[in-house]
């Protein structure tokens, strides 16, 4: 497959200047197929032609063709397995078994996007500190049980080679790969699931509150070992949504390396972690170990030892294991010699020997280094506002720029607090659908798009991109979301906000002066929230609404938000394209982060015992629909999600501005020496971008030097 050649920087700059950079519909056609089980055996050629069908004229050189590696489902293990040269001496001196014994009998065979790569080289990237573990987690998400294809819409095997539901969707069974080994060479079997369930998950000291994602209608599921390579998840009631839960970045589905030591992911290296449990080791010895590691007790010790980026000794299943931990200026990784992915010619993946992340003291330095071409591949922390500078320096830095639009609706959403109770007058209006519709129509999204997204975003509501299976459709992107000052004013007059003060702003109905709304806008995020909010405040003058922008430091803003102090909160609604795996930005149901109503989220999780019941019937309806999806098949649940979105959009539960853009983790700077890099990849949380492009297939064309 030929990749579109990158054009000269000048040419692209001219296009940007002429605002010709428009977006292409994301994955048209591919989405229509909906979610299909890989066991259905979509033939390779079909996927290829579906990809080719999207080959319409490119609207821009920067948003290329969506492409990615193909997982060859059920492909047999290639005859002659090969390994990276760096492993040869280790096999010769007996440190490692030969590659035939390291790769499972049924490996995951992946057809790279471009072709067979060559071994070697260390990928250079930047990271921002110990809190940036997701930077490496996403390169190591090959350790999820079930994953997605490169479009992020269809399930593909990962650790589990296949799966099925039985007993009317009460039992979900996965099949492991024979001969699959941990990074230390120990076998990976059903016992690792039993250990996780019995010794970690069921121990309230370790997992204090059982996960809601491992329960249907409040009843917890359990893990049963069928044989060494077969594990069943058994539920009291039908739980077909569990497949989506495993596909998402959830407690159950995230995989070991993304679970941050909270012991999610449904399996754990029993042979290694046992030594940190009181059940297997004397308490005195554990206390001794805890003291040596400077942690409080054995629980903290276990958590520390379960985080791959802090503990290089932890056996893992992803493509790279940690060498130098994340709390040092150089976070480095090297290949896992037991990784279970191979290319069709039998080369064990990954091609890259390792990854080196250098600590950047701040985002400006990181972006400057990217501009200077000091990174081989960087899509994280790159700033859309610097796009012109990135393009200008492409030749000098010997890199190219790829844009990967996200699939969620709005990068800068005005999240409305539906449980706001600080000012009864303001609360009354915020909880009025017509008021919110008027606010939404008072926003000039095209102007915002040109100013802050350099024209590469898509103006619209909060609904996700029409190409994703849960999208209610194209028309819901624009409902109540195009500028119409006249209708907005009319709506505001109709609901009784007719009085205006001398400056033309509407006044409160209780006679206490001007109606002032306040929005919390956090500085230093991927998108310049405070400046966008200021622009909206200007635009709202025309509908007579005064908006005060409170620019807050991130933690201060988030803490005040959790305390229910905000009226409006500006944030991206990322993750909402797969609503059941990450609902928090679409509905107020997750108390960990409920910008749309912290008290409603508490009400939801306590089954109405605490918190506040939503005042609007539409919100109750949407939450009921959300609750009902657990017992539905993937197709039914997607249809339900569309209904939920229709309610959200029609009632403008939150106000979308511009989204489906590359602003968040979608400005990809790629050194020209790199191969198997998709022209465009999906940018989705559940697809663990760039894991959807299988980083294990990335390689250096020049054999590893940079």
């Amino acid at each position, binding site marked *: 497959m030929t990749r579109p050649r990158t054009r000269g920087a000048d040419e692209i700059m001219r296009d940007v200047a002429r605002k010709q950079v428009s977006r292409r519909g994301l994955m048209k056609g591919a989405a229509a197929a909906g979610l299909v089980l890989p066991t259905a055996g979509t033939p390779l050629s079909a996927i290829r032609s579906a990809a080719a069908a999207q080959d319409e004229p490119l609207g821009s050189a920067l948003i290329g063709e969506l492409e990615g590696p193909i997982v060859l489902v059920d492909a047999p293990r290639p005859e002659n397995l090969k390994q990276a040269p760096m492993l040869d001496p280790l096999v010769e001196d007996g440190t490692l078994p030969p590659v035939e014994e390291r790769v499972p009998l049924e490996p995951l065979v992946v057809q790279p996007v471009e072709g067979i790569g060559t071994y070697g080289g260390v990928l*250079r990237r930047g990271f921002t*500190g*110990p*809190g940036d573990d*997701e*930077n490496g987690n996403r390169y190591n998400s090959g350790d999820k049980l079930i994953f997605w294809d490169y479009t992020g819409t269809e399930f593909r095997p990962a650790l589990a080679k296949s799966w099925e539901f039985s007993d009317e969707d009460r039992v979900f069974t996965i099949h492991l790969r024979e001969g699959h080994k941990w990074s230390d060479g120990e076998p990976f079997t059903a016992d690792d699931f039993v250990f996780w369930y019995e010794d970690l998950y069921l121990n309230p000291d370790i997992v*204090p*509150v059982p*996960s809601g994602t491992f329960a249907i209608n409040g009843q917890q599921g359990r893990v049963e070992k069928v044989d060494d390579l077969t594990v069943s998840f058994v539920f009291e009631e039908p739980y077909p949504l569990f497949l989506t839960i495993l596909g998402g970045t959830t*407690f159950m589905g995230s995989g070991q390396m*993304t679970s941050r030591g*909270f012991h999610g992911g449904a399996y754990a290296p029993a042979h290694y972690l046992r030594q940190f449990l009181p059940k297997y080791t004397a308490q005195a010895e554990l206390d001794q170990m805890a003291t040596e590691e*400077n*942690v*409080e007790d054995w*629980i*903290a010790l276990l958590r*520390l030892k379960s985080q791959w980026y802090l503990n290089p000794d932890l056996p893992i299943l992803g493509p790279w294991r940690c060498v*130098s931990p994340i*709390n040092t*200026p*150089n976070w*480095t990784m090297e290949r896992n010699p037991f990784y279970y992915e191979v290319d069709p010619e039998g080369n064990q993946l990954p091609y890259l020997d390792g990854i*080196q992340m*250098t*600590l*950047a*003291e*701040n985002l400006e*330095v990181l972006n*400057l*280094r990217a*501009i*200077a071409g*000091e990174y081989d591949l960087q899509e994280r922390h790159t700033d859309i506002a610097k796009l012109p500078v990135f393009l200008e320096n492409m030749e000098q830095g010997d890199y190219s720029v790829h844009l990967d639009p996200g699939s969620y609706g709005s990068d800068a959403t005005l999240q409305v607090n539906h449980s706001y109770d600080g000012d009864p007058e303001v609360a009354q209006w915020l909880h009025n659908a017509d008021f919110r519709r008027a606010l939404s129509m008072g926003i000039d999204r095209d102007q915002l798009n040109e100013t802050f997204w350099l024209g590469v975003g898509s103006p619209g509501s909060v609904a996700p991109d029409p190409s994703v299976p849960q999208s209610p459709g194209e028309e819901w992107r624009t409902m109540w979301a195009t500028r119409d000052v006249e209708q907005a004013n009319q709506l505001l007059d109709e609901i009784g906000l007719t009085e205006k003060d001398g400056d033309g702003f509407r006044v409160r109905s209780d006679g206490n002066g001007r109606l002032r709304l306040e929005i919390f806008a956090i500085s230093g*995020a*991927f998108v310049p929230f405070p400046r966008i909010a200021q622009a909206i405040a200007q635009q709202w003058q025309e509908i007579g609404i005064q908006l005060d922008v409170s620019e807050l*430091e*991130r*933690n*201060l*803003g*988030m*803490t*005040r938000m*959790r*305390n229910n102090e905000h009226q409006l909160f500006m*944030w*991206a609604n*990322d*993750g909402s394209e797969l609503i059941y795996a990450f609902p*928090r930005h679409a509905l107020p149901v*997750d*108390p*960990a*982060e409920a910008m749309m109503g912290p008290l409603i989220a508490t009400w939801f*999780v306590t089954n109405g015992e605490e918190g506040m019941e939503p005042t609007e019937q539409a919100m109750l309806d949407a939450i009921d629909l959300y609750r009902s999806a657990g017992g539905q098949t993937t197709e039914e649940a997607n249809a339900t999600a569309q209904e939920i979105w229709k309610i959200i959009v029609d009632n403008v539960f939150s106000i979308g501005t511009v989204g489906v853009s590359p602003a*968040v*983790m979608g400005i990809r700077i790629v050194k020209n020496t790199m191969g198997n890099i998709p022209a465009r990849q999906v940018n989705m*949380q559940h697809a663990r971008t760039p894991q959807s492009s299988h980083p294990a297939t990335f390689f250096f064309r020049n054999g590893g030097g940079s």
Partner: protein
Amino acid sequence: MLSYLIRRVLFALFTCWAISVLAFIIIQLPPGDFVDAYISNLSASGSGISADQAEQLRAEYALDQPIWVQYARWMRLMAQGDLGMAMEWQRPVTEVIGDRLWLTMVVSFAAVVLTWIVALPIGIYSAVRPYSPLDYLFTLLGFLGLAIPSFLLGLLVLYFGFVYFNANIGGLFSPEYIDAPWSWAKLWDMMKHLPVPAVILGIASMAQAIRIMRANLLDELRKPYVVTARAKGLSEWRAIWKYPVRVALNPFASTIGYTLPYVVSGSIIVSLVLGLPTVGPLLLRSLIAQDMFLAGAIVLLLGVLTVIGTLVSDLLLMWIDPRIRVED
């Protein structure tokens, strides 16, 4: 003399304790705690943990305890010579600071030495030849140095360095040496990176030092004892160096109180702009993360160093300027 010393040391100890209480309170002042900051950070990077996991973390770091219990816990650790665990870094505070302390001291020390080497001769020259063309030139440059914020200078140097000399962006090492163990090549690499931050850090204080030196020396040179010395036929060189310069140095000695903590922290803003791996950015970062142990340790360290520095500068002044000894 001895009783004066004891009195000063006791007072210094009390000040240190007061600093520890203040540091702790100030760090706790903003709403939220380390776990809140951690969650906010995760949210900003498109992921998150559940509310239950947050509670679990809070218990693990004892953040669910009342503030005085947390302070007592911190003091108990301190008493054992343990600065605690940096929450964000998951490493002992001593290690986290230790990594950077050495480099910070190298950079800051280079800046201080550079300041003095340049500022003293120029200041003396300007005082001895006031209102000469060169004096005007140095005055102009000095005011420019004072007026230009050092972070702006840092940005300009970074930009021109990158555009015209293809220099590395920020940091103290080339990428290939960051990871490498210490060697002569790595040392040389650091020496090559050192002048830029040293000059930028030094330039503002350099300008200041020139002005102070010039003003003080001018005052001294007009005094009768200098006139007498000259009248008695003392060589110009000796007439200037023997006493006036020594007296004019007083303000420098008295700034050591601030120089010491500066050497350890580096300049926070300039270090951030230049991407230097020094203690300054670490402090800012720990405050944003509400990492109580790390921020507390750094603030306390800086406080203690200020106290020690003041003590040292008092003693130095006594040594340089006999008049102080006599008055005491």
